[in-house]
């Protein structure tokens, strides 16, 4: 639908919005604090607040690892889970393609003419052209992006570097713990000094 707001009204709205001091309630403040957060993987993790961390720590410690090693492994696993959970959430949250983009622009133009018949102000051909252009560009964009799996492919790439870091830190934490060294890094027999 075409906007009916006058330029003066638009300016007044913008000026009024500048006077706003933001949310006042605690809940509102908490909500706006997450405004710019898309997945939160760049934030430092507070392990004490992570529900998975302490059960993991206990279980790994029970497996015979020292306290420091258990902590390192549990932290690495918690970080990895955070990345993979965000990955799954993003994968499932990608919306399907809007079917309105598949309409023929000519049909849309006819529909706008039809709607304008009973309206007080008639719709000019320029306005219809503008609407068609907007729909056309959205359609082209949608066509370029393709179906859900195609969107997935683009959206999931940004998680790769987080996965790389998290997965490497797991193997590092385990292999560098006491009594465990990566195979081939040291021999089981002490070497004699020459």
């Amino acid at each position, binding site marked *: 639908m075409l906007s009916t707001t006058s330029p003066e009204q638009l300016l007044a709205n913008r000026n009024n919005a500048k006077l706003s001091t933001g949310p006042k309630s605690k809940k509102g403040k908490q909500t706006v604090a997450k405004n710019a957060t898309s997945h939160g993987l760049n934030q430092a993790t507070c392990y004490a607040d992570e529900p*998975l961390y302490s*059960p*993991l720590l206990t*279980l*790994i410690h*029970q*497996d015979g*690892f020292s306290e420091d090693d258990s902590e390192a*492994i549990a932290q690495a*696993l918690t970080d*990895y*889970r955070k990345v*993979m*959970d965000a990955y*799954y959430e993003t994968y*499932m949250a990608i919306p399907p*393609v809007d*079917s309105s*983009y*598949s*309409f*023929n*622009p000519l049909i849309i133009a006819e529909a706008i003419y039809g709607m304008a018949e009973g309206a007080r102000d008639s719709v000019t051909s320029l306005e219809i052209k503008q609407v068609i252009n907007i729909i056309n560009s959205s*359609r082209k964009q*949608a*066509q370029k992006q*393709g*179906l859900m*799996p*195609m969107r*997935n*492919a*683009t959206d*999931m*790439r940004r998680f*790769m570097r987080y*996965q*790389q870091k998290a*997965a*490497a830190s*797991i*193997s590092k*934490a*385990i*292999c560098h713990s006491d*009594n*465990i*060294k*990566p*195979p081939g890094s040291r021999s*089981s027999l002490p070497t004699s000094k020459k």
Partner: protein
Amino acid sequence: MTNNKKLKKLTTLRTVKLQPQHQQQFDIVFESLLSEMDTPSALSVVLIEQIAECLFWIKQHNNDKEEIICYAMGEELVKTLHFLDEDYVEAITHTIKQILQGHDVKATEPERYARFEEIMNKRDMTLSTLRAKAMLARMDKIDDLDAIITRHIQNLRHLQKGLDAVDIKKRMLKRLDLEIQQLTEEAKQQREHSLEPPLEKKADAIDHQP
């Protein structure tokens, strides 16, 4: 370890939570991997769970890739239309998918198959040339998915390295136990042996007497 104990560990250590439509698929992979382990420790179970998740993602993204190719094949066939008729593309994609999966579309849906064949003949295309064209058209997306799949394989390698390390510790302990047992037995035998020689020496002495 008995099956009950394994299942008990499974319920207490669940770190991967997926939606029901994916959970079942994941559980099958996870349980089959777990059944290959003799005595998995808590950390091993967690690592196996992450490995199963990697395998799940590799399979999922491979399916996505196939879906992209099928859809692109449909797009290639209806390219002459001046607007994107998604319903039509999807109908064609469905037919292509069924043909690629080996269904006898000619027998089950002759009308649809005839329409599909007509378009193919008009374009002078075979399924393989159409697939090649579709892959070229959506190469960027396929490349993206390939990179993601490679990442999951590398994740899997890291996790496998960790699992091997945990296993090596276990194996080392087992080996040390066996070595201790062997040394104890040897010591026992030697002690028994050390008690016997004087008699043997005596006997020898008698035998060698001129």
